[in-house]
Protein backbone atom coordinates (compact mmCIF):
# COMPACT_ATOMS: atom_id res chain seq x y z
CA UNK A 1 0.00 0.00 0.00
CA UNK A 2 1.17 3.50 -0.84
CA UNK A 3 2.21 5.41 2.22
CA UNK A 4 2.86 9.15 2.39
CA UNK A 5 3.91 11.76 4.90
CA UNK A 6 1.87 14.90 5.36
CA UNK A 7 2.45 17.69 7.84
CA UNK A 8 -0.35 19.31 9.80
CA UNK A 9 0.35 22.51 7.84
CA UNK A 10 -0.19 20.67 4.57
CA UNK A 11 -3.35 19.02 5.89
CA UNK A 12 -4.61 22.54 6.59
CA UNK A 13 -3.65 23.54 3.05
CA UNK A 14 -5.53 20.50 1.80
CA UNK A 15 -8.58 21.50 3.84
CA UNK A 16 -8.29 25.04 2.48
CA UNK A 17 -8.26 23.74 -1.10
CA UNK A 18 -11.28 21.54 -0.44
CA UNK A 19 -13.28 24.33 1.18
CA UNK A 20 -12.47 26.65 -1.75
CA UNK A 21 -13.60 23.95 -4.20
CA UNK A 22 -16.94 23.87 -2.44
CA UNK A 23 -16.52 20.46 -0.81
CA UNK A 24 -18.17 20.12 2.57
CA UNK A 25 -15.65 19.17 5.21
CA UNK A 26 -16.75 17.63 8.50
CA UNK A 27 -14.90 16.74 11.66
CA UNK A 28 -15.69 16.34 15.38
CA UNK A 29 -16.67 19.61 17.07
CA UNK A 30 -14.22 21.14 19.61
CA UNK A 31 -16.33 19.80 22.50
CA UNK A 32 -16.46 16.45 20.72
CA UNK A 33 -20.23 16.28 20.88
CA UNK A 34 -20.90 15.81 17.17
CA UNK A 35 -19.62 16.34 13.65
CA UNK A 36 -19.54 19.92 12.41
CA UNK A 37 -18.50 21.69 9.25
CA UNK A 38 -14.96 23.05 9.15
CA UNK A 39 -15.29 26.68 8.12
CA UNK A 40 -11.69 27.85 8.37
CA UNK A 41 -8.87 25.53 7.39
CA UNK A 42 -6.49 26.73 10.12
CA UNK A 43 -9.00 25.51 12.72
CA UNK A 44 -8.37 21.95 11.58
CA UNK A 45 -7.43 19.76 14.52
CA UNK A 46 -6.87 16.05 14.54
CA UNK A 47 -7.12 14.45 17.95
CA UNK A 48 -6.46 10.69 18.00
CA UNK A 49 -6.45 10.88 21.80
CA UNK A 50 -10.02 12.21 22.02
CA UNK A 51 -12.97 9.95 22.92
CA UNK A 52 -15.40 9.10 20.11
CA UNK A 53 -17.71 12.08 19.54
CA UNK A 54 -21.00 11.75 21.44
CA UNK A 55 -22.94 11.32 18.21
CA UNK A 56 -21.48 9.11 15.49
CA UNK A 57 -20.60 10.12 11.94
CA UNK A 58 -23.39 8.04 10.38
CA UNK A 59 -25.36 11.17 9.43
CA UNK A 60 -22.90 11.64 6.58
CA UNK A 61 -24.62 8.82 4.70
CA UNK A 62 -27.77 8.30 6.76
CA UNK A 63 -29.05 11.64 8.06
CA UNK A 64 -31.25 11.89 11.12
CA UNK A 65 -33.99 13.41 8.98
CA UNK A 66 -33.68 12.80 5.27
CA UNK A 67 -36.23 14.12 2.77
CA UNK A 68 -37.13 11.44 0.24
CA UNK A 69 -39.70 13.41 -1.72
CA UNK A 70 -41.48 16.75 -1.86
CA UNK A 71 -45.17 17.11 -2.57
CA UNK A 72 -47.55 19.84 -3.62
CA UNK A 73 -51.30 19.37 -3.28
CA UNK A 74 -53.79 21.11 -5.47
CA UNK A 75 -57.58 20.84 -5.21
CA UNK A 76 -57.58 17.51 -6.97
CA UNK A 77 -54.02 16.66 -7.91
CA UNK A 78 -50.75 15.95 -6.19
CA UNK A 79 -47.38 16.80 -7.65
CA UNK A 80 -44.36 14.83 -6.51
CA UNK A 81 -40.69 15.69 -6.72
CA UNK A 82 -37.89 13.30 -5.95
CA UNK A 83 -35.36 14.62 -3.43
CA UNK A 84 -31.85 15.26 -4.73
CA UNK A 85 -29.02 13.68 -2.79
CA UNK A 86 -26.09 15.53 -1.33
CA UNK A 87 -22.97 17.37 -2.48
CA UNK A 88 -19.40 16.12 -2.12
CA UNK A 89 -18.14 15.81 1.41
CA UNK A 90 -14.96 14.83 3.19
CA UNK A 91 -15.01 13.40 6.71
CA UNK A 92 -11.82 14.27 8.50
CA UNK A 93 -10.23 12.27 11.29
CA UNK A 94 -12.81 9.50 11.63
CA UNK A 95 -12.03 6.90 14.25
CA UNK A 96 -11.91 3.33 12.93
CA UNK A 97 -15.13 2.58 14.84
CA UNK A 98 -16.89 5.29 12.85
CA UNK A 99 -15.29 4.59 9.48
CA UNK A 100 -16.14 0.88 9.52
CA UNK A 101 -19.82 1.58 10.13
CA UNK A 102 -20.56 2.73 6.57
CA UNK A 103 -19.58 -0.60 5.04
CA UNK A 104 -21.68 -2.45 7.60
CA UNK A 105 -24.79 -0.34 6.92
CA UNK A 106 -24.13 -0.60 3.19
CA UNK A 107 -25.18 -4.25 3.37
CA UNK A 108 -28.74 -3.58 4.52
CA UNK A 109 -29.22 -0.59 2.25
CA UNK A 110 -28.30 -2.70 -0.79
CA UNK A 111 -29.16 -6.34 -0.14
CA UNK A 112 -32.16 -6.34 -2.44
CA UNK A 113 -33.53 -2.98 -3.33
CA UNK A 114 -30.92 -0.22 -3.52
CA UNK A 115 -31.39 2.82 -1.30
CA UNK A 116 -29.94 5.57 -3.47
CA UNK A 117 -30.21 8.20 -0.77
CA UNK A 118 -27.67 6.25 1.25
CA UNK A 119 -25.65 5.20 -1.80
CA UNK A 120 -25.32 8.65 -3.38
CA UNK A 121 -24.21 10.16 -0.09
CA UNK A 122 -21.65 7.45 0.47
CA UNK A 123 -20.44 7.77 -3.10
CA UNK A 124 -19.98 11.51 -2.57
CA UNK A 125 -18.11 11.00 0.69
CA UNK A 126 -14.38 10.63 1.17
CA UNK A 127 -13.43 9.17 4.54
CA UNK A 128 -10.11 10.21 6.07
CA UNK A 129 -9.64 7.88 9.01
CA UNK A 130 -7.29 8.38 11.92
CA UNK A 131 -5.58 5.77 14.07
CA UNK A 132 -7.11 6.07 17.54
CA UNK A 133 -5.08 6.29 20.74
CA UNK A 134 -8.08 6.66 23.03
CA UNK A 135 -9.72 3.90 24.96
CA UNK A 136 -11.89 3.69 28.04
CA UNK A 137 -13.98 1.13 29.91
CA UNK A 138 -16.72 1.29 27.27
CA UNK A 139 -14.59 0.69 24.16
CA UNK A 140 -14.43 -2.83 22.69
CA UNK A 141 -13.52 -2.48 18.99
CA UNK A 142 -11.06 -5.37 19.21
CA UNK A 143 -13.88 -7.73 20.25
CA UNK A 144 -15.93 -7.07 17.10
CA UNK A 145 -13.26 -7.60 14.48
CA UNK A 146 -11.89 -4.06 14.39
CA UNK A 147 -9.04 -2.30 16.14
CA UNK A 148 -7.86 1.25 16.87
CA UNK A 149 -5.66 0.96 13.79
CA UNK A 150 -8.01 -0.76 11.34
CA UNK A 151 -8.38 0.93 7.99
CA UNK A 152 -11.76 -0.63 7.14
CA UNK A 153 -14.03 2.07 5.74
CA UNK A 154 -11.31 4.69 5.35
CA UNK A 155 -10.31 5.91 1.90
CA UNK A 156 -7.23 7.51 3.39
CA UNK A 157 -5.89 6.49 6.78
CA UNK A 158 -3.82 8.82 8.92
CA UNK A 159 -1.44 7.88 11.71
CA UNK A 160 -0.08 10.61 13.94
CA UNK A 161 3.72 10.54 14.00
CA UNK A 162 4.18 13.76 15.95
CA UNK A 163 2.07 16.82 16.72
CA UNK A 164 3.00 18.26 13.38
CA UNK A 165 3.31 15.18 11.21
CA UNK A 166 1.12 12.33 10.00
CA UNK A 167 1.61 9.22 7.94
CA UNK A 168 -1.10 8.86 5.28
CA UNK A 169 -2.09 5.61 3.58
CA UNK A 170 -4.20 5.57 0.45
CA UNK A 171 -6.49 2.63 1.23
CA UNK A 172 -9.07 2.61 -1.57
CA UNK A 173 -9.07 3.64 -5.23
CA UNK A 174 -10.95 6.72 -4.21
CA UNK A 175 -8.16 7.50 -1.73
CA UNK A 176 -5.44 6.87 -4.30
CA UNK A 177 -7.13 9.24 -6.77
CA UNK A 178 -7.49 11.82 -4.06
CA UNK A 179 -3.81 11.69 -3.10
CA UNK A 180 -2.92 11.91 -6.79
CA UNK A 181 -5.03 15.02 -7.17
CA UNK A 182 -3.28 16.78 -4.28
CA UNK A 183 0.09 15.10 -4.78
CA UNK A 184 2.07 18.28 -4.11
CA UNK A 185 0.95 18.07 -0.44
CA UNK A 186 1.84 14.41 0.09
CA UNK A 187 5.50 13.40 0.36
CA UNK A 188 6.49 9.82 -0.33
CA UNK A 189 6.93 7.85 2.86
CA UNK A 190 7.11 4.22 3.95
CA UNK A 191 5.75 2.02 6.69
CA UNK A 192 8.90 2.32 8.78
CA UNK A 193 7.55 5.68 9.97
CA UNK A 194 4.04 4.58 10.91
CA UNK A 195 4.90 1.12 12.21
CA UNK A 196 6.29 2.14 15.63
CA UNK A 197 3.44 4.62 16.09
CA UNK A 198 0.85 1.92 15.33
CA UNK A 199 2.55 -0.63 17.51
CA UNK A 200 2.48 1.70 20.49
CA UNK A 201 -1.35 1.75 20.39
CA UNK A 202 -2.65 -0.73 22.92
CA UNK A 203 -6.38 -0.64 22.32
CA UNK A 204 -9.21 -1.20 24.77
CA UNK A 205 -8.81 -3.40 27.83
CA UNK A 206 -12.27 -4.98 27.50
CA UNK A 207 -12.28 -8.11 25.43
CA UNK A 208 -14.96 -10.73 24.78
CA UNK A 209 -15.42 -13.47 22.22
CA UNK A 210 -18.18 -12.38 19.82
CA UNK A 211 -18.34 -15.92 18.43
CA UNK A 212 -19.29 -17.21 21.87
CA UNK A 213 -21.87 -14.46 22.21
CA UNK A 214 -23.47 -15.58 18.97
CA UNK A 215 -23.33 -19.24 19.98
CA UNK A 216 -25.28 -18.45 23.12
CA UNK A 217 -27.79 -16.22 21.31
CA UNK A 218 -28.30 -18.96 18.70
CA UNK A 219 -29.54 -21.28 21.41
CA UNK A 220 -31.21 -18.97 23.89
CA UNK A 221 -34.03 -16.92 22.49
CA UNK A 222 -36.53 -17.75 25.22
CA UNK A 223 -34.56 -16.63 28.26
CA UNK A 224 -34.98 -14.52 31.36
CA UNK A 225 -31.46 -13.16 30.90
CA UNK A 226 -32.78 -9.86 29.53
CA UNK A 227 -35.38 -9.30 32.25
CA UNK A 228 -33.17 -7.23 34.59
CA UNK A 229 -31.99 -4.96 31.79
CA UNK A 230 -35.58 -4.76 30.54
CA UNK A 231 -36.61 -3.54 33.99
CA UNK A 232 -33.88 -0.88 33.96
CA UNK A 233 -34.14 0.34 30.38
CA UNK A 234 -36.23 3.48 29.90
CA UNK A 235 -36.81 2.80 26.22
CA UNK A 236 -35.52 6.26 25.37
CA UNK A 237 -33.69 5.07 22.26
CA UNK A 238 -30.55 7.17 22.78
CA UNK A 239 -28.43 4.04 22.22
CA UNK A 240 -29.76 3.74 18.67
CA UNK A 241 -29.46 7.45 17.97
CA UNK A 242 -25.78 7.72 18.93
CA UNK A 243 -24.90 4.37 17.34
CA UNK A 244 -22.84 4.40 14.12
CA UNK A 245 -24.53 1.25 12.76
CA UNK A 246 -28.18 1.44 13.91
CA UNK A 247 -30.14 2.11 10.75
CA UNK A 248 -33.83 1.67 11.53
CA UNK A 249 -36.04 4.47 10.32
CA UNK A 250 -39.59 5.70 10.13
CA UNK A 251 -41.27 7.35 7.16
CA UNK A 252 -43.11 10.52 8.14
CA UNK A 253 -44.83 13.35 6.27
CA UNK A 254 -44.17 16.96 7.24
CA UNK A 255 -46.53 19.61 5.96
CA UNK A 256 -45.05 23.08 5.43
CA UNK A 257 -48.48 24.47 4.71
CA UNK A 258 -51.92 23.28 3.63
CA UNK A 259 -50.58 22.60 0.17
CA UNK A 260 -46.90 21.71 0.44
CA UNK A 261 -44.61 19.46 2.36
CA UNK A 262 -42.07 16.70 2.31
CA UNK A 263 -41.77 13.05 3.21
CA UNK A 264 -38.93 12.16 5.56
CA UNK A 265 -36.91 9.14 6.48
CA UNK A 266 -36.39 9.76 10.21
CA UNK A 267 -34.27 7.70 12.58
CA UNK A 268 -36.28 5.24 14.64
CA UNK A 269 -35.29 2.82 17.39
CA UNK A 270 -36.29 -0.75 18.26
CA UNK A 271 -36.28 0.24 21.95
CA UNK A 272 -39.44 2.31 21.46
CA UNK A 273 -42.61 0.45 22.43
CA UNK A 274 -44.46 1.66 19.34
CA UNK A 275 -41.77 0.38 16.99
CA UNK A 276 -43.51 -2.94 16.38
CA UNK A 277 -47.10 -2.10 17.36
CA UNK A 278 -49.55 -3.46 14.78
CA UNK A 279 -52.62 -1.62 13.57
CA UNK A 280 -54.68 -4.32 15.28
CA UNK A 281 -53.20 -3.42 18.66
CA UNK A 282 -51.10 -6.59 18.84
CA UNK A 283 -47.45 -5.98 19.70
CA UNK A 284 -44.99 -8.82 19.12
CA UNK A 285 -42.44 -7.11 21.40
CA UNK A 286 -44.69 -6.04 24.21
CA UNK A 287 -42.15 -5.44 26.96
CA UNK A 288 -38.76 -3.78 27.30
CA UNK A 289 -36.90 -7.06 27.93
CA UNK A 290 -38.07 -8.34 24.52
CA UNK A 291 -37.01 -5.08 22.93
CA UNK A 292 -33.58 -5.23 24.52
CA UNK A 293 -33.27 -8.86 23.43
CA UNK A 294 -33.98 -7.65 19.90
CA UNK A 295 -31.23 -5.04 20.15
CA UNK A 296 -28.59 -7.51 21.30
CA UNK A 297 -29.72 -10.20 18.86
CA UNK A 298 -29.85 -7.82 15.91
CA UNK A 299 -26.32 -6.66 16.59
CA UNK A 300 -24.64 -9.92 17.56
CA UNK A 301 -26.70 -12.58 15.78
CA UNK A 302 -29.32 -11.58 13.18
CA UNK A 303 -27.10 -9.23 11.19
CA UNK A 304 -24.38 -11.88 11.11
CA UNK A 305 -26.89 -14.53 9.98
CA UNK A 306 -28.08 -12.29 7.20
CA UNK A 307 -25.11 -10.15 6.18
CA UNK A 308 -22.06 -11.82 7.77
CA UNK A 309 -21.22 -8.70 9.75
CA UNK A 310 -21.50 -7.77 13.42
CA UNK A 311 -23.81 -4.76 13.63
CA UNK A 312 -21.51 -3.05 16.12
CA UNK A 313 -18.12 -1.37 15.91
CA UNK A 314 -17.40 -1.33 19.65
CA UNK A 315 -17.34 2.46 19.92
CA UNK A 316 -19.10 2.34 23.30
CA UNK A 317 -21.27 5.40 22.60
CA UNK A 318 -24.53 3.70 23.60
CA UNK A 319 -23.07 2.85 27.02
CA UNK A 320 -21.34 6.20 27.59
CA UNK A 321 -24.60 8.02 26.90
CA UNK A 322 -27.11 5.71 28.57
CA UNK A 323 -29.12 7.63 31.20
CA UNK A 324 -29.50 4.47 33.31
CA UNK A 325 -25.93 3.19 32.77
CA UNK A 326 -26.81 0.12 30.74
CA UNK A 327 -23.54 -1.09 29.27
CA UNK A 328 -23.88 -3.33 26.25
CA UNK A 329 -20.20 -4.27 26.50
CA UNK A 330 -20.64 -5.80 29.93
CA UNK A 331 -23.91 -7.48 28.88
CA UNK A 332 -22.37 -9.27 25.92
CA UNK A 333 -19.26 -10.07 27.95
CA UNK A 334 -21.58 -11.79 30.43
CA UNK A 335 -23.31 -13.63 27.57
CA UNK A 336 -19.95 -14.73 26.21
CA UNK A 337 -19.13 -16.23 29.60
CA UNK A 338 -22.40 -18.19 29.72
CA UNK A 339 -21.32 -20.64 27.02
Amino acid sequence: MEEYIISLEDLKKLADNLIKEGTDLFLPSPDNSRFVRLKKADELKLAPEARPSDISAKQAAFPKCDPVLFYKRDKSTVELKDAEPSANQVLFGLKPCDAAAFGIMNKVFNWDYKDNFFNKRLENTLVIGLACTYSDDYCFCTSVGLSPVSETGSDIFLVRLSDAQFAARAVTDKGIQFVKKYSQLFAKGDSSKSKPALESIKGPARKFDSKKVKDWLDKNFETDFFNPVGDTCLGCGQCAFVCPTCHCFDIVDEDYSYSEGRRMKNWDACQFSLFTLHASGHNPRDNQAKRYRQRVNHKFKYYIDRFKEILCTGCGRCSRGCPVTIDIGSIVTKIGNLT
Partner: protein
Amino acid sequence: MVANIQEKSLYLPKLAKMTKKERFTDKEMFFEFRFDDGSNLNHRPGQFVELSIYGIGEAPISISSSPTQQGYFELCVRSVGRVTSYLHNNLNVGDYVGIRGPFGNGFPFEKFKGHDMLFICGGLGVAPLRSLINYTLDKTKRGDFGKVYILYGCKNNQEWLYQKEVEGWKNRADVETYLTVDKCTDSNWKGNVGVITTLIPKVNFDVNKTIAVICGPPIMYKFVVLELKNRNFKEENIYMSLERRMKCGVGKCGHCQINSVYVCQSGPVFDLPTVRKLQEAI
Protein backbone atom coordinates in the same frame (compact mmCIF):
# COMPACT_ATOMS: atom_id res chain seq x y z
CA MET B 1 -41.24 -13.10 -7.94
CA VAL B 2 -42.75 -9.96 -9.41
CA ALA B 3 -40.88 -6.92 -8.25
CA ASN B 4 -41.91 -3.47 -9.27
CA ILE B 5 -38.51 -1.84 -8.72
CA GLN B 6 -38.99 1.88 -8.73
CA GLU B 7 -36.33 3.27 -10.99
CA LYS B 8 -36.10 6.78 -9.69
CA SER B 9 -36.35 6.30 -5.99
CA LEU B 10 -37.39 3.58 -3.63
CA TYR B 11 -39.66 5.93 -1.77
CA LEU B 12 -41.38 7.71 -4.66
CA PRO B 13 -44.96 6.48 -5.03
CA LYS B 14 -47.03 6.37 -8.17
CA LEU B 15 -50.31 8.27 -8.05
CA ALA B 16 -53.50 6.24 -8.24
CA LYS B 17 -57.06 7.53 -8.50
CA MET B 18 -59.83 6.26 -6.30
CA THR B 19 -62.58 4.96 -8.58
CA LYS B 20 -64.87 3.22 -6.08
CA LYS B 21 -65.54 3.60 -2.39
CA GLU B 22 -68.04 1.46 -0.52
CA ARG B 23 -68.74 1.00 3.16
CA PHE B 24 -68.67 -2.58 4.46
CA THR B 25 -68.96 -2.06 8.22
CA ASP B 26 -68.48 0.70 10.80
CA LYS B 27 -64.73 0.16 10.57
CA GLU B 28 -64.03 -1.27 7.13
CA MET B 29 -64.40 0.19 3.69
CA PHE B 30 -63.72 -1.09 0.21
CA PHE B 31 -61.77 0.92 -2.36
CA GLU B 32 -60.93 0.51 -6.01
CA PHE B 33 -57.96 2.38 -7.50
CA ARG B 34 -56.67 2.92 -11.02
CA PHE B 35 -53.47 4.39 -12.41
CA ASP B 36 -54.06 7.22 -14.89
CA ASP B 37 -51.96 5.47 -17.54
CA GLY B 38 -54.21 2.41 -17.30
CA SER B 39 -51.34 0.18 -16.22
CA ASN B 40 -51.77 -2.81 -13.96
CA LEU B 41 -50.29 -3.13 -10.50
CA ASN B 42 -48.75 -6.45 -11.63
CA HIS B 43 -49.03 -8.02 -8.23
CA ARG B 44 -49.17 -11.58 -6.97
CA PRO B 45 -52.02 -12.64 -4.67
CA GLY B 46 -50.87 -11.98 -1.09
CA GLN B 47 -48.64 -9.00 -1.81
CA PHE B 48 -49.22 -5.55 -0.31
CA VAL B 49 -48.80 -1.90 -1.21
CA GLU B 50 -47.69 1.13 0.76
CA LEU B 51 -50.56 3.56 0.44
CA SER B 52 -49.83 7.21 1.08
CA ILE B 53 -51.81 10.34 1.59
CA TYR B 54 -49.58 13.37 1.30
CA GLY B 55 -49.26 15.28 4.51
CA ILE B 56 -50.72 12.40 6.50
CA GLY B 57 -48.37 9.48 5.92
CA GLU B 58 -47.96 6.02 4.52
CA ALA B 59 -49.41 2.66 5.61
CA PRO B 60 -49.05 -0.93 4.38
CA ILE B 61 -52.29 -2.41 3.00
CA SER B 62 -52.87 -5.92 1.60
CA ILE B 63 -54.05 -6.11 -1.97
CA SER B 64 -57.50 -7.62 -1.95
CA SER B 65 -58.10 -8.18 -5.66
CA SER B 66 -56.82 -10.94 -7.89
CA PRO B 67 -54.23 -10.05 -10.54
CA THR B 68 -56.65 -11.59 -13.04
CA GLN B 69 -58.74 -8.46 -12.56
CA GLN B 70 -57.05 -6.11 -15.01
CA GLY B 71 -56.81 -2.32 -15.09
CA TYR B 72 -57.54 -1.70 -11.40
CA PHE B 73 -56.85 -3.04 -7.95
CA GLU B 74 -58.86 -3.21 -4.76
CA LEU B 75 -58.12 -2.69 -1.09
CA CYS B 76 -60.23 -3.35 1.96
CA VAL B 77 -59.14 -0.99 4.72
CA ARG B 78 -59.98 -0.83 8.40
CA SER B 79 -59.95 2.65 9.88
CA VAL B 80 -57.39 2.44 12.68
CA GLY B 81 -54.64 5.01 12.38
CA ARG B 82 -54.00 8.38 10.80
CA VAL B 83 -53.70 7.28 7.18
CA THR B 84 -56.58 4.82 7.20
CA SER B 85 -59.01 7.09 9.01
CA TYR B 86 -58.13 9.95 6.67
CA LEU B 87 -58.76 7.64 3.72
CA HIS B 88 -62.14 6.69 5.14
CA ASN B 89 -63.31 10.10 6.21
CA ASN B 90 -61.76 12.60 3.84
CA LEU B 91 -60.96 11.04 0.49
CA ASN B 92 -63.57 10.32 -2.12
CA VAL B 93 -63.91 8.90 -5.60
CA GLY B 94 -61.73 10.99 -7.91
CA ASP B 95 -59.09 11.74 -5.26
CA TYR B 96 -55.52 10.56 -5.62
CA VAL B 97 -53.35 8.53 -3.27
CA GLY B 98 -49.73 7.42 -3.61
CA ILE B 99 -48.97 3.76 -4.18
CA ARG B 100 -45.61 2.03 -3.73
CA GLY B 101 -45.21 -1.63 -4.47
CA PRO B 102 -46.41 -4.30 -4.81
CA PHE B 103 -44.11 -5.63 -2.08
CA GLY B 104 -43.53 -8.98 -0.44
CA ASN B 105 -43.49 -12.51 -1.77
CA GLY B 106 -47.20 -13.25 -2.14
CA PHE B 107 -48.63 -16.78 -2.16
CA PRO B 108 -46.61 -19.42 -4.03
CA PHE B 109 -49.66 -20.32 -6.15
CA GLU B 110 -47.48 -22.13 -8.69
CA LYS B 111 -46.84 -24.73 -5.97
CA PHE B 112 -50.55 -24.93 -5.17
CA LYS B 113 -51.49 -26.05 -8.68
CA GLY B 114 -53.25 -29.40 -8.76
CA HIS B 115 -54.16 -29.20 -5.07
CA ASP B 116 -57.42 -28.71 -3.24
CA MET B 117 -57.50 -25.35 -1.49
CA LEU B 118 -58.68 -24.70 2.07
CA PHE B 119 -58.97 -21.00 2.88
CA ILE B 120 -59.32 -20.03 6.54
CA CYS B 121 -60.13 -16.36 6.99
CA GLY B 122 -60.63 -14.60 10.32
CA GLY B 123 -62.17 -11.13 10.21
CA LEU B 124 -60.15 -8.71 8.13
CA GLY B 125 -57.92 -11.66 7.15
CA VAL B 126 -60.39 -12.22 4.32
CA ALA B 127 -59.02 -9.12 2.57
CA PRO B 128 -55.60 -10.53 1.61
CA LEU B 129 -56.97 -14.05 1.14
CA ARG B 130 -59.61 -12.76 -1.28
CA SER B 131 -56.78 -11.98 -3.75
CA LEU B 132 -55.92 -15.69 -3.83
CA ILE B 133 -59.53 -16.94 -3.56
CA ASN B 134 -60.58 -14.88 -6.55
CA TYR B 135 -57.46 -15.94 -8.42
CA THR B 136 -58.28 -19.58 -7.75
CA LEU B 137 -61.92 -19.09 -8.74
CA ASP B 138 -61.14 -17.10 -11.88
CA LYS B 139 -62.43 -19.00 -14.90
CA THR B 140 -58.99 -18.90 -16.55
CA LYS B 141 -57.33 -20.45 -13.44
CA ARG B 142 -60.06 -22.62 -11.90
CA GLY B 143 -58.83 -25.69 -13.76
CA ASP B 144 -55.43 -25.40 -12.07
CA PHE B 145 -56.92 -26.24 -8.68
CA GLY B 146 -59.06 -29.00 -7.25
CA LYS B 147 -61.78 -28.54 -4.66
CA VAL B 148 -62.06 -25.19 -2.92
CA TYR B 149 -63.17 -24.83 0.70
CA ILE B 150 -63.66 -21.39 2.20
CA LEU B 151 -63.96 -20.98 5.98
CA TYR B 152 -64.73 -17.47 7.08
CA GLY B 153 -65.45 -16.26 10.58
CA CYS B 154 -66.34 -12.90 12.06
CA LYS B 155 -66.78 -11.57 15.59
CA ASN B 156 -70.49 -10.91 15.00
CA ASN B 157 -73.08 -10.53 12.25
CA GLN B 158 -72.33 -6.86 11.72
CA GLU B 159 -68.74 -7.55 10.69
CA TRP B 160 -69.06 -9.39 7.38
CA LEU B 161 -66.86 -8.10 4.64
CA TYR B 162 -67.52 -8.69 0.93
CA GLN B 163 -70.98 -9.94 1.89
CA LYS B 164 -72.33 -10.08 -1.67
CA GLU B 165 -69.28 -11.88 -2.89
CA VAL B 166 -69.44 -14.38 -0.03
CA GLU B 167 -73.03 -15.10 -1.12
CA GLY B 168 -71.64 -15.71 -4.60
CA TRP B 169 -69.10 -18.20 -3.19
CA LYS B 170 -71.88 -19.96 -1.32
CA ASN B 171 -73.89 -20.32 -4.49
CA ARG B 172 -71.08 -21.78 -6.56
CA ALA B 173 -71.24 -25.52 -7.05
CA ASP B 174 -67.47 -25.86 -7.14
CA VAL B 175 -66.92 -24.16 -3.77
CA GLU B 176 -67.80 -25.26 -0.25
CA THR B 177 -68.27 -22.19 1.92
CA TYR B 178 -68.56 -22.39 5.72
CA LEU B 179 -69.35 -19.31 7.77
CA THR B 180 -69.34 -18.68 11.49
CA VAL B 181 -69.75 -15.83 13.94
CA ASP B 182 -68.06 -15.78 17.35
CA LYS B 183 -71.16 -14.17 18.78
CA CYS B 184 -74.56 -14.15 17.10
CA THR B 185 -76.08 -10.67 16.88
CA ASP B 186 -78.72 -11.37 14.24
CA SER B 187 -81.80 -13.41 15.13
CA ASN B 188 -82.15 -14.51 11.49
CA TRP B 189 -78.69 -16.09 11.47
CA LYS B 190 -79.01 -19.80 10.75
CA GLY B 191 -75.32 -20.52 10.45
CA ASN B 192 -72.64 -21.68 12.84
CA VAL B 193 -71.88 -19.83 16.06
CA GLY B 194 -68.41 -20.24 17.54
CA VAL B 195 -64.81 -19.46 16.77
CA ILE B 196 -63.40 -20.39 13.39
CA THR B 197 -61.79 -23.60 14.64
CA THR B 198 -65.28 -25.03 15.21
CA LEU B 199 -65.74 -25.11 11.42
CA ILE B 200 -62.72 -27.27 10.70
CA PRO B 201 -64.24 -30.61 11.86
CA LYS B 202 -67.19 -29.99 9.52
CA VAL B 203 -65.04 -29.94 6.40
CA ASN B 204 -64.33 -33.18 4.65
CA PHE B 205 -61.00 -32.40 3.02
CA ASP B 206 -58.33 -34.83 1.88
CA VAL B 207 -55.18 -34.02 3.86
CA ASN B 208 -53.03 -35.64 1.22
CA LYS B 209 -53.89 -33.14 -1.47
CA THR B 210 -55.10 -30.02 0.31
CA ILE B 211 -53.23 -26.77 0.92
CA ALA B 212 -54.45 -24.68 3.85
CA VAL B 213 -54.00 -20.93 3.69
CA ILE B 214 -54.69 -18.95 6.87
CA CYS B 215 -55.04 -15.26 7.57
CA GLY B 216 -56.53 -13.64 10.62
CA PRO B 217 -55.65 -12.10 13.97
CA PRO B 218 -52.43 -13.44 15.60
CA ILE B 219 -54.30 -15.43 18.26
CA MET B 220 -56.15 -17.39 15.57
CA TYR B 221 -53.07 -19.03 14.03
CA LYS B 222 -52.09 -21.18 16.99
CA PHE B 223 -55.54 -22.66 17.40
CA VAL B 224 -56.23 -23.18 13.71
CA VAL B 225 -52.88 -24.92 13.35
CA LEU B 226 -53.69 -27.17 16.32
CA GLU B 227 -57.03 -28.09 14.80
CA LEU B 228 -55.46 -28.82 11.39
CA LYS B 229 -52.82 -30.95 13.09
CA ASN B 230 -55.64 -32.89 14.76
CA ARG B 231 -56.80 -33.71 11.26
CA ASN B 232 -53.27 -34.89 10.37
CA PHE B 233 -52.57 -31.95 8.13
CA LYS B 234 -48.95 -31.83 6.99
CA GLU B 235 -47.13 -28.77 8.31
CA GLU B 236 -45.57 -28.02 4.94
CA ASN B 237 -49.05 -27.72 3.43
CA ILE B 238 -50.08 -24.96 5.81
CA TYR B 239 -49.41 -21.37 4.70
CA MET B 240 -50.08 -18.14 6.56
CA SER B 241 -49.79 -14.44 5.95
CA LEU B 242 -48.23 -12.60 8.91
CA GLU B 243 -49.13 -9.15 10.08
CA ARG B 244 -46.25 -6.81 10.91
CA ARG B 245 -45.75 -3.09 11.19
CA MET B 246 -44.10 -2.15 7.92
CA LYS B 247 -42.77 1.20 6.88
CA CYS B 248 -40.39 1.03 3.95
CA GLY B 249 -41.64 -2.20 2.35
CA VAL B 250 -38.18 -2.82 0.92
CA GLY B 251 -36.27 -4.52 3.76
CA LYS B 252 -34.47 -1.52 5.20
CA CYS B 253 -36.35 0.25 7.97
CA GLY B 254 -36.31 -2.67 10.43
CA HIS B 255 -39.89 -2.47 11.72
CA CYS B 256 -41.12 -5.80 10.36
CA GLN B 257 -38.01 -7.77 11.27
CA ILE B 258 -38.45 -11.22 12.84
CA ASN B 259 -35.02 -12.64 13.68
CA SER B 260 -32.97 -12.13 10.53
CA VAL B 261 -36.02 -12.09 8.24
CA TYR B 262 -37.62 -8.98 6.79
CA VAL B 263 -41.31 -9.87 6.58
CA CYS B 264 -41.96 -7.15 3.98
CA GLN B 265 -39.55 -8.87 1.59
CA SER B 266 -39.34 -12.56 2.53
CA GLY B 267 -42.98 -12.57 3.66
CA PRO B 268 -45.67 -11.80 4.53
CA VAL B 269 -46.53 -15.35 3.37
CA PHE B 270 -44.69 -18.22 5.06
CA ASP B 271 -45.25 -21.93 5.32
CA LEU B 272 -45.68 -23.34 8.81
CA PRO B 273 -42.23 -25.02 9.05
CA THR B 274 -40.64 -21.61 8.35
CA VAL B 275 -42.87 -19.86 10.88
CA ARG B 276 -41.89 -22.47 13.47
CA LYS B 277 -38.26 -21.42 13.04
CA LEU B 278 -39.07 -17.72 13.42
CA GLN B 279 -39.16 -16.81 17.08
CA GLU B 280 -41.74 -14.14 18.00
CA ALA B 281 -43.55 -14.74 14.69
CA ILE B 282 -46.94 -15.86 16.05
